[in-house]
């Protein structure tokens, strides 16, 4: 068998793996994106058979739509809140359950992971019950410490309601990233910590100098993943809990897209919002990757 034949057979072998994947990706990812961009140039109700070409009008209108800006602000507020909240808590629990020989570590790992196996819809409904001003757990709990019955309208502050969506979103995300970080911490050779301990480094010093630098890659992946899933997936929790209200105060781009496309019959406008979500996700990913380029192992 000459080298040319071998090379040709190898290429066929490689192509047999790559082409189906490319086809699948093209049909189910690239094509819908292109189609969404196509629709965004039309004034279309989403029900009619005819569409009116309007060029960039939908995009121009978005710039003058205060709800769009509010939704973008809410999206990034949730991204920041979830990244900070989830990473801090997931790291804390991951360290606590791996570094101290805690007997019930396995049990607590399972407990913290439970929200990840629950549907986001169920989580939204559950937290709606918690926040219910009349029969909710939160007000009932707070009433234990006061002489009068507490009846705070947690999801009715209008301008600040978006804050109330952070606890369920963080609670739902901790478990997965905790497991990811636990796996990363457990892959660090114990001899590193033993050596540091002999040198007199305390737990805090060991965390900053050994644990954090060696799990940084997993942390980067986690932060990017939280950001992506929030920008693209906060729709569900928002829609279940508030439907973007009261008075559009909790609107995110995903929920506003749905509202405009399927409730107010502006499908072209909804498609343009969808395209902007894609662009924002790409820009945010690139910026975050640039910001997180440095290697903490080199720096520590």
């Amino acid at each position, binding site marked *: 068998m000459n080298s040319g034949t071998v090379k040709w057979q190898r290429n066929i072998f490689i192509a047999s793996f790559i082409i189906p994947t490319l086809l699948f990706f093209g049909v189910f990812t690239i094509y819908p994106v292109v189609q969404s961009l196509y629709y965004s140039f039309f004034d279309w109700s989403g*029900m009619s058979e*005819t569409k009116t070409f309007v060029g960039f009008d939908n995009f121009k209108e978005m710039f003058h739509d205060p709800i769009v800006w509010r939704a973008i602000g809410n999206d990034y507020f949730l991204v920041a809140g979830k990244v900070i909240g989830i990473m801090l808590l997931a790291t804390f629990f991951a360290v606590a359950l791996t570094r101290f020989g805690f007997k019930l570590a396995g049990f607590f790992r399972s407990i913290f992971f439970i929200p990840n196996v629950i549907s986001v819809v169920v989580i939204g409904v559950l937290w709606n019950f918690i926040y219910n001003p009349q*029969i909710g757990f939160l007000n009932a709990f707070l009433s234990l410490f006061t002489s009068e019955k507490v009846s705070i*309208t947690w999801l*009715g502050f209008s301008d600040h309601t978006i804050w109330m969506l952070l606890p369920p979103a963080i609670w739902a995300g901790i478990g997965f990233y905790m497991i990811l970080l636990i796996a990363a911490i457990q892959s660090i050779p114990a001899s590193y910590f033993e050596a540091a301990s002999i040198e007199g480094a305390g737990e805090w010093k060991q965390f900053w100098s050994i644990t954090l630098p060696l799990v940084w890659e997993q942390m980067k992946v986690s932060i990017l993943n939280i950001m992506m899933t929030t920008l693209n997936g906060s729709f569900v929790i928002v829609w279940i809990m508030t439907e973007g*209200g009261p008075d559009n105060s909790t609107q995110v781009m995903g929920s506003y897209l749905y509202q405009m496309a399927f409730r107010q019959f502006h499908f072209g406008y909804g498609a343009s919002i969808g395209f902007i979500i894609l662009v924002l996700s790409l820009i945010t990913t690139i910026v975050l990757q640039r910001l997180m380029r440095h290697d903490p192992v080199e720096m520590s």
Partner: protein
Amino acid sequence: MIMKKKIAALGIAVILAAVSLVGCGSNSNNGGAATNAPTKEPAAEATDAPAATDTTVKLTGDFEIQYFVGGYGDKWWKKVIADFQAANPELNIKESAGPKINDQNRPRWIGGNPPDFVYIDGPVLNDRQMVEDGQLEDLTDWLKDAKNVDGDLISDILAQPAQQFDGKVYNIPLVLNSWGVFWNKALFKEKGWAEPTDFPSFLAVSEKIKADGITPFIHTGKYPYYINGSFLYPAIVSANNNDFSILQDMAANKVEAFESPAVLAALNKIVEMRDKDYIDKASIQINHTDSQMLFLQNKDAFIVNGLWLPNEMAKDVPAGFDFGFIPSITQEAGGKVVANTSTATVAIAKKAKNKEAAKAFLQFIFSKDQASQWAELSGAPSNIKGDISSSNAPSHVKDAAKYLTDPNTVVIPTITYNADVDKAMMDATDALTISKITPEEWVKRVTDVVKKVSK
């Protein structure tokens, strides 16, 4: 062109598949059963003759009915379709039904392959939008002399006439429901509270209710169309000398209608309730189920809702709970009751393949027998004139039917607002109830949207 339609339909299907949709609750688990199977050749010539009684015209071919299953259930639909099938044995009737059917069939409407007959109710479907999109058959001329299976003119037996879009009729109201205010008669009797008949008596009793430690009023803030439909719109009509044309002008996007003193007067009634602390603060964040549960637990004395409430909450109504209902409490002392109707309509698709069967079905369902049958099986009054007092319909339905047929009641016909304006009104009302804006700001906000959609 066909290719483009198919691409558009596929696109919608892909998007729908990617979106989780949580709609209004329904007890039905009946999934949609739409098919895209090619239809057989329908009957050759359409006639206005009643299908079930005319033996000269046999309805054949496929005939597909799309109906949303929500608060009114599907018992009536099952029964009436079975009866229509029995009357037309050679017709192959297909049902596309379920709580998600409007979403499931959307690609077919876009692709120019809709079902023949559609019941316009539930999310996604909006009659005004469907008319603007050219999806519905113009029934104007047909309805002028269309007779039902009993030989009565259909237009004569409608309790409320069909809504007109630029002078044309595309859909006919099947249900004649009403928004209004509910209370628990048993609780009122026990506490010695007077049942309200107008706004002054409502305020007076609300003060007593509040003094007794119960919150007077709850609404569904998550879906503000409840308070708009039951309180705001009747209040606007009352303040406009009982003339509901102001609402029709609002639906026609006439800015001056929104700037009318009647609108401000109505909004100020909400402000008065709010400032007297009668509105349950929980309202702003809760959905219909939560607000209804609080009402059934007597935590709130009044709730704004539609006549489907007792039926919707049938499993949760406590023993001894006795529904009191009035279509409006916003009229001044001695003023007329204003009933803001909530209807669901039926229509024929413009691209229906079997229009004659669809028209025959309209003739079949708009008959006096169906008035009682609808009331019994759906728990709501029908839009067909007919005495249901001897039927097995629930008592509150009979009471409502009395209100709706009383000459002293101002009955607001079906009015569909522009979707953007409707949303602006809902958001603004929510904001008003939590003191975020003033009535003048409500008007400013909404008229800004009206001007924008009128361009």
